[in-house]
């Protein structure tokens, strides 16, 4: 039995090592000096020095989402900790497992308004799955192991541990507690599902004439095996499948049963199929307002089955007929086994009319756009990026806005954990640091941050991090000089009064990149797209490609806020002003 005497900071590191942590994203400061001193003396954990704490936490998110492991962050007290709040909220909304270690002023000074003091457990309570303030070094090791358990068990999420400096300096024993069976008294999420409801689900599936699978980020969180078994199940049933923004990649986009993303900027066929469906099988998805549109007109004819690990997701927005609480992988396997017993699913004629109907919707070619040489259409740029990189098992991150939606529409994801985007919180500036995390988790792989110029500007100090660690991240800026999604809403809903959505004085992105020792490229005409992308991919160093695109292009299809799935707009020709009612105007 190990029982090593060491200080609190060393206990922290030993616990992390015992939990398998190899990478720590962070930024030092006064309160965390003992941790950084302990880091200096060891070689098992590699610290990645970011340039802003928000970068650390998004990098940890990118690391977690691209690897399925827990991302770990270490920042100092006060401003170091508060700079992480956005990232914690982001991880909480998207259910990403993180451990955030924050320094704190010594226990005796807590509450004294000491230098760099912030009540970070108070501040982060609503945006963490759980948080701790460690007030006794005896509880330190147990707390860290418990935090790892909580972050990944059930619905994952961020857990924050606040570490006062005196605790980090105090001597105590490290006991390797994780090697014994620690019991976690009251947090035991339900993972298994009862077989009677599986039978009910399968009989509903067999009776359905217009079924649809609607799969979300929960499938990705459940692990690669969950995507595999769910894909097998969907293939076996022959049902159409739509994915949420968070779920892209959990069912292969190239499969003929995939009918695209659904929701506000989802495909015409996916949204119409949801609207007309008689059976929705929601898997690891949460009926988010971006997905459902107007709730009172949402899928009026459908029976709804909801598979989710979080009981509080059930009936939150939409009342469902059957709920199955548990791990997606286990439930999908149970349904698959039951489906195999039934003969019904071998007869492809059952769904013939439904697929004919879907094929009719697909004829609208809702993602079509007009290609011209100048200016570059943003859709064209992303479509070419996909075509050129599709065989390279790419990892894609994004900022938030039009470019994010175009990336979701035109980049096809065939595997889970390849797509990292801020879904729930919609955090601009997510893309660049998330790409750092994804690259560190997947050395040698091609990681591309498809970013907007405005999103990029929010966290671009991380170019310095990319340069320091020689990370071959590719930054693909879809540059239209506007906060494009804001401009689009102003055009469609505010009479074209473009209030504060234009970015004057953008930097010269090529020179900016070069100043960080990053290769800068630029394309302004469609004829230059392929060459620029091929150069970007070929260069083994970090590259920033400034893709200067049409300033006026809007993102379609679009379900205006407050509208229903079948009120989707296909393009600028569709009248919008009268489709947004007063109720819709107040929605975000």
């Amino acid at each position, binding site marked *: 039995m190990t029982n090593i005497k060491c200080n609190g900071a060393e206990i922290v590191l030993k616990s992390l090592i015992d939990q398998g942590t190899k990478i720590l994203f962070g930024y030092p400061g006064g309160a965390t000096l003992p941790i950084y001193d302990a880091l200096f003396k060891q070689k098992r954990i590699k610290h990645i020095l970011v340039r802003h704490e928000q970068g650390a936490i998004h990098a940890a998110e990118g690391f977690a989402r691209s690897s399925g492991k827990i991302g770990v962050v270490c920042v100092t007290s006060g401003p170091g900790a508060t700079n992480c709040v956005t990232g914690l909220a982001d991880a909480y909304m998207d259910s990403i497992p993180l451990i955030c270690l924050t320094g704190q002023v010594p226990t005796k000074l807590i509450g004294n308004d000491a230098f760099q003091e912030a009540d970070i457990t108070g501040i982060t*309570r*609503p945006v963490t799955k759980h948080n701790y*303030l460690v007030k006794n070094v005896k509880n330190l090791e147990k707390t860290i192991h418990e935090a790892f358990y909580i972050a990944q068990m*059930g619905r994952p999420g961020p857990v924050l541990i606040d570490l006062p400096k005196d605790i980090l300096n105090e001597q105590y024993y490290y006991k390797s507690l994780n090697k014994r069976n620690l019991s976690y008294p*009251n947090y035991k999420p339900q993972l298994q599902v009862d077989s009677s409801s599986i039978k009910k689900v399968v009989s509903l599936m067999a009776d359905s004439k217009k079924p649809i699978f609607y799969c979300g980020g929960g499938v990705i969180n459940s692990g690669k095996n969950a995507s595999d078994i769910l894909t097998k199940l969907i293939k076996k049933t022959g049902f159409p499948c739509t994915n949420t923004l968070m779920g892209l990649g959990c069912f292969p986009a190239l499969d003929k049963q995939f009918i695209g993303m659904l929701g506000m900027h989802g495909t015409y066929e996916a949204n119409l199929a949801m609207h007309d469906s008689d059976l929705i099988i929601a898997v690891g998805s949460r009926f988010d307002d971006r997905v459902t549109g107007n709730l009172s007109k949402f899928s009026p004819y459908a029976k709804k089955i909801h598979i989710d690990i979080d009981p*509080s997701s*059930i*009936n939150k927005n939409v009342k469902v007929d059957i709920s199955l609480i548990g791990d997606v992988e286990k439930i999908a396997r149970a349904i698959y086994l039951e489906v195999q017993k039934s003969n019904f699913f071998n007869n492809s004629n059952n769904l013939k009319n439904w697929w004919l109907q879907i094929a009719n919707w697909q004829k609208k070619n809702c993602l079509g756009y007009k290609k011209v040489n100048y200016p570059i259409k943003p859709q064209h740029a992303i479509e070419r990026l996909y075509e050129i990189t599709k065989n390279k098992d790419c990892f894609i991150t994004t900022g938030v806005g039009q470019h994010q939606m175009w990336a979701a529409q035109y980049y096809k994801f065939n595997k889970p954990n390849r797509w990292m985007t801020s879904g729930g919180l919609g955090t601009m500036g997510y893309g660049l640091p998330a790409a750092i995390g994804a690259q560190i988790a997947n050395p040698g792989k091609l990681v591309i941050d498809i970013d907007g110029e405005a999103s990029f500007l929010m966290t671009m100090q991380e170019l310095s991090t990319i340069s320091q660690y020689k990370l071959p991240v590719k930054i693909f800026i879809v540059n239209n000089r506007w906060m494009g999604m804001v401009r689009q809403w102003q055009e469609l809903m505010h009479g074209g009064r473009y209030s504060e959505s234009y970015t004057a004085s953008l930097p010269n992105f090529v020179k900016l990149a070069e100043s960080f020792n990053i290769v800068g490229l630029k394309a302004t005409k469609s004829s230059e797209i392929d060459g620029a992308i091929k150069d970007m991919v070929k260069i083994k160093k970090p590259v920033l490609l400034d893709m200067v695109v049409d300033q006026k292009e809007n993102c379609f299809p679009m379900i205006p806020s407050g509208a229903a799935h079948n009120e989707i707009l296909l393009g600028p020709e569709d009248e919008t002003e009268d489709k947004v009612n007063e109720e819709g105007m107040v929605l975000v």
Partner: protein
Amino acid sequence: MSDQKITKHTISVLVNDEPGALARVIGLFSGRGYNIDSLTVAPVNLEQKHSRIIIVTSGSQIIIDQIISSLEGLIQVHKVIDLTSKNSTDERELAMIKISLKKGKLNDIKNIAKKYKAKLIFESLKNLAFEITDSPDNINAFIFKLNILGKIDVSRTGLIAILKD
């Protein structure tokens, strides 16, 4: 959505008696826009360090279910019981009411207190104070009657109840 009828529910939440547990529970209510009509907290098991929080809230059945499953998801929460939908005792509340004495009202005040089975816990030349444990309706009625007879000040604990089984 059906089940839109708003009803009152008394919910018992057994939590770890540790910092942040109450804040998490209350934060869930304020953060998600649920009402708290009444709240009580006290340690109930010193050995295991458990406290019981009893919250009276109101909402449609869907909202109540949502509240319960969200509470159950909190790490520091052991057990959540919707006392209103289970076989529980009538709800009780303890109140202390102080009344300033006006000339010639002493007997009236004491008679009312006797009728409501309120216990005199303090008496001076200026003030009287009573303790009453009863249903909220009876306590309200008692307070209403005293209010006519003098200036009053009230402290109440909030509702509690317990499962019968």
